[in-house]
């Protein structure tokens, strides 16, 4: 028997109290900063840290170190942070609003809808890349609304939402494949787009989606308390004075905006939107006021770490980050499922 008393942070803070949640959020912010620093210091070319700092200080456009840091690593780091937090939060919103733990942007059809319009625009209007984030949002929103209405017609059970999501996703996926097959020379790399990756992002291309994502995150945080009420069930929420249909529509729209913005520059990253909300609930429970920020932070950290691996593992060549995400995320998700079966998950 160990002489050390078993120390539990959760017991120490009295789990689900404000101070415990605050501790988790503070810890995640520190981890995110560390991950971002690692992501900027490590890459396929080996540059000593001192040289990085001096390059950032001198800002000499002709220095190769400065070019690598400023045009490759910083945009990539921001892209991973933005994509990770927006897809994770999108998943958390969908799971909460549809009251379905299987919901995530890729299963409900948001990804396929956004992906289809992204591919379509790049193939037929290669000059108008600025419209891609907007088009991706519209595509994602249309897909989620189709899924939602099909599910409502068939009784809105948990299973019918997932099934109609799978059906709509595969239909739209076929349309995407058709465009990619007929237009092999479009401005998109088929494999990288379908798996998801961050090579080739520029600050210029990130600007629009970044604006959308920040705006959407602010709205979600404002709505998070109402989302808690909605999760009590439609009848209860109505009796508490909530306009259920309007709130649900608004939330679906924001989920589509978040996922669509990320997909417009990162491709079809799927898994992160499913596992991060579950992992976050494991940490802070169901209260959306804490779940949403934890989800955003955890999603960013996870995506950032996966992207560092994608860049470094086979350097100087790269693999799409989606591969690493699924390799790491799959086993972790199985672990969460097994824990839940034992009745240990979610306190």
């Amino acid at each position, binding site marked *: 028997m160990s002489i050390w008393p078993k120390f539990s942070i959760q017991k120490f803070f009295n789990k689900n109290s404000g101070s415990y949640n605050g501790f988790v959020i503070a810890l995640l912010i520190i981890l995110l900063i560390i991950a971002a620093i690692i992501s900027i210091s490590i*890459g396929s070319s080996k540059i000593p840290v001192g040289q990085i700092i001096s390059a950032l200080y001198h800002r000499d456009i002709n220095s*190769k170190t400065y*070019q690598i840091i400023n045009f490759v690593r910083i945009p990539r780091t921001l892209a991973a942070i933005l994509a990770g937090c927006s897809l994770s939060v999108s998943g958390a919103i969908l799971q909460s609003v549809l009251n379905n733990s299987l919901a995530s942007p890729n299963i409900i059809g948001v990804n396929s809808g956004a992906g289809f319009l992204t591919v379509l625009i790049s193939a037929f209007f290669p000059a108008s*890349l600025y419209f891609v984030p907007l088009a991706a949002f519209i595509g994602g929103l249309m897909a989620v609304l189709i899924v939602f209405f099909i599910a409502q017609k068939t009784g809105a059970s948990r299973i019918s939402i997932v099934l109609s999501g799978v059906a709509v996703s595969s239909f739209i996926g076929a349309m995407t494949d058709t465009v990619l097959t007929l237009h092999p020379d479009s*401005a*998109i790399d088929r494999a990288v787009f379908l798996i998801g990756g961050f090579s080739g992002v520029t600050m210029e291309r990130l600007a629009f989606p970044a604006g959308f994502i920040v705006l959407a995150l602010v709205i979600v945080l404002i709505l998070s308390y109402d989302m808690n009420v909605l999760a009590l069930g439609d009848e209860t929420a109505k009796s508490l004075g909530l306009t259920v249909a309007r709130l649900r529509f608004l939330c679906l729209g924001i989920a589509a905006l978040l996922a669509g913005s990320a997909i417009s520059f990162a491709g079809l990253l799927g898994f992160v939107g499913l596992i991060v909300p579950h992992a976050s609930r494991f940490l802070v429970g169901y209260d959306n006021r804490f779940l949403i920020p934890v989800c955003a932070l955890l999603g960013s950290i996870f995506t950032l770490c996966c992207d560092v691996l994608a860049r470094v593992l086979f350097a100087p060549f*790269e693999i799409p980050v989606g591969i690493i995400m699924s390799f790491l995320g799959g086993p972790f998700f199985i672990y969460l499922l097994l824990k839940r079966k034992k009745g240990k998950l979610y306190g």
Partner: protein
Amino acid sequence: MSSGAKAKYDDNMACKILDDLGTTNIAAKHESLLEDLSMEIIIQEDPEYIFVVTMGDSEKAINALKEGIEKDPAWGNLSAVKNGNYIVLPKELFHYKPNAKWSESYEYMAKILYPEIFQ
């Protein structure tokens, strides 16, 4: 999302021709089965010439590609792009097997690399 550029080796026809004409391929310095060469390495090596063979040949696609490369700060600061040595090769000579036109393929490339010989 990448711009769709793949680094090619000697098993690629255009690379073989370039190899025969005495150039060094920066991708071939790092042996791998992968084709997504990191942008960081391209900046570090800063190649003199960049040759591109497109899959399609619509003018629109090529223009969009060129415009994207010139606007992209990482690509745009490479010496090859600054000096106009970012070259889209004609598909019929470098993507399809040129058959009877092998000499034309070599000549086309040699004119770009060694213009002084042809004067």
